[in-house]
């Protein structure tokens, strides 16, 4: 007991070292969020009465609810697509020899560190009227006039899935490389095929990584302001842009605050669900 005590003494640092940052977060993070809640309870920027009129306005408005639902739904689609593409990539990474791993890791990291505007701009070039997809289809004689790909939901989902793929792949790699390879060998030895072993052994054991990856990807997809407005923009409105418009063009701060709180609540609910599932799957992976 005394040795542990001494060791803690030598290597631990007092909690008060975190105090400056705690104070910083309290003043510039917690207090602003409280002010946001307070602002959302006003019926007009300068009125004194407090109530839920802004929330009633949002929840009763078909247009606003449509924006919320389509934002959350596009997030789900983009997350599923990046899981479908990211899982095989993470799997291939863990099966690769060392030299290939470093190269693959740099390929995975580069988009994460490249500016989001640049990555989204690439999708404008790919999906545009004279973009690579349309030019290829026309030269193959499959279409005569360029297809409208930019400013569609399909285009947005693909662009989001690509832009956010690293966020999905990194936790998956961590989870997959923790799996004991003896387990799949045991499955093979007992006559399990590759597909069966994959779905009965590898996938269940990687669930904590799947949950972590989906959580990060989803949270980033629903708030991907730039990609939403440049690739999806034009016809469809999404929550971040809705907040921005209400706050800056219309100067309706109470309503913008209420939209923000509803959006925050929706995202946090999904995050909480993923965390619950993640914890359940951790127990499952350990058992």
């Amino acid at each position, binding site marked *: 007991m005394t040795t542990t005590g001494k060791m803690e003494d030598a*290597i631990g640092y007092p909690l008060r070292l975190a105090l400056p940052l705690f104070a910083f977060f309290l003043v510039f993070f917690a207090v602003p969020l409280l002010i946001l809640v307070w602002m959302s309870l006003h019926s007009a920027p300068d009125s004194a009465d407090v109530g839920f009129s802004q929330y009633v306005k949002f929840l009763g408005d078909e247009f606003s609810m449509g924006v919320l639902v389509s934002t959350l739904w596009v997030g789900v689609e983009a997350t599923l697509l990046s899981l479908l593409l990211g899982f095989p990539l993470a799997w291939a990474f863990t099966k690769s020899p060392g030299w290939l791993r470093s190269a693959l890791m740099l390929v995975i990291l580069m988009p994460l560190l490249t500016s989001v505007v640049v990555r989204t701009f690439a999708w404008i070039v790919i999906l545009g009227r004279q973009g690579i997809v349309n030019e290829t289809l026309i030269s193959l004689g499959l279409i005569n006039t360029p297809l409208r790909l930019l400013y569609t939901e399909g285009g947005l989902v693909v662009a989001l899935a690509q832009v956010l793929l690293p966020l999905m792949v990194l936790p998956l790699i961590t989870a997959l490389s923790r799996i004991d390879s003896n387990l799949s060998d045991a499955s093979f030895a007992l006559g399990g095929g590759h597909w069966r072993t*994959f779905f009965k052994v590898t996938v269940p054991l990687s669930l904590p990584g799947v949950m972590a990856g989906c959580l990060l990807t989803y949270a980033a997809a629903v*708030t991907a302001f730039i990609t939403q407005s440049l690739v999806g923009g034009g016809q469809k409105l999404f929550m971040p842009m809705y907040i921005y418009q209400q706050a800056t063009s219309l100067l309706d701060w109470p309503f913008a605050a209420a939209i923000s709180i509803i959006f925050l609540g929706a995202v946090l609910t999904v995050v909480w669900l993923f965390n619950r599932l993640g914890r359940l799957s951790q127990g499952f992976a350990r058992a």
Partner: protein
Amino acid sequence: MSHMNAPAMSRSNVTLDIEALSFKATMLSLAGISIVLLLAPTVIVLIVSFTSDYSLRFPPTGFSLQWYAALTEDAALKLAAWNSFKIAIATTLVSVVLGVAAALSIARSRTLSAQALDQLFMSPLVLPALAFALAALMFFSVMGFPISTTSLVIGHTIVCIPYVIRNTVAALHQLDPALLECSASLGASRSYTFRRITLPLIRPGILAGAFICFMSSFDNVPVSLFLRDAATDMLPIRMWQNLENSLDVTIAAVSGVLIAFTIVLMLLMERLTGLSKRLA
């Protein structure tokens, strides 16, 4: 024995092979698609940035350096880039000082308050940044604090500091406690041990965190949208607005410069900190 089993074995091997082949082919082709998807946009942007066309046609009909030349004369873009750079440097400095101190105290502590602090400091990663930015704008206006570079750095620090903390905590977890114990038992003071043992060993982690913090501040749009004053134009916002108004080809050249800048920094960080091993 093995001789007798041979025919049966080889038949089951054939079925296994087809099964194995279909599995591996599916996985590797999906992985291949992902790799192409990860690389293609960067390559396409680089090619388009050398176009001689006046629209975003791909493939370009000819190549030239005209858009890079146009870039050197675009004062608005250059000013925006300089502003973004200054804000990112200031944000990184503040984040490293506050973040490393906080990481030291929460990394090895298992107390409830340390875990709660960790959750608090990481929460900006999952919260919609635009909602936080609006909240911060309201906070500064309620407090009568004018929007300035200071408010911008404060906002950026909140959303970028999680990267510094996460990487520093990870580096501290890899530190062998025996080294610190040895130092302490040989009579070294706590601050001497920190300067001579802890800091040199966690420096690559801090550096990797600072790098990601810098890049995400440089690239931030949501916080800058609300917290900058009218005189402070930021590069990603300028690029975004240019693209919203017209599909401007100059942006391809800016993107080319940013990609080159990212690749150089990334390779440098890989050398200095082993970035690729740190993030997986």
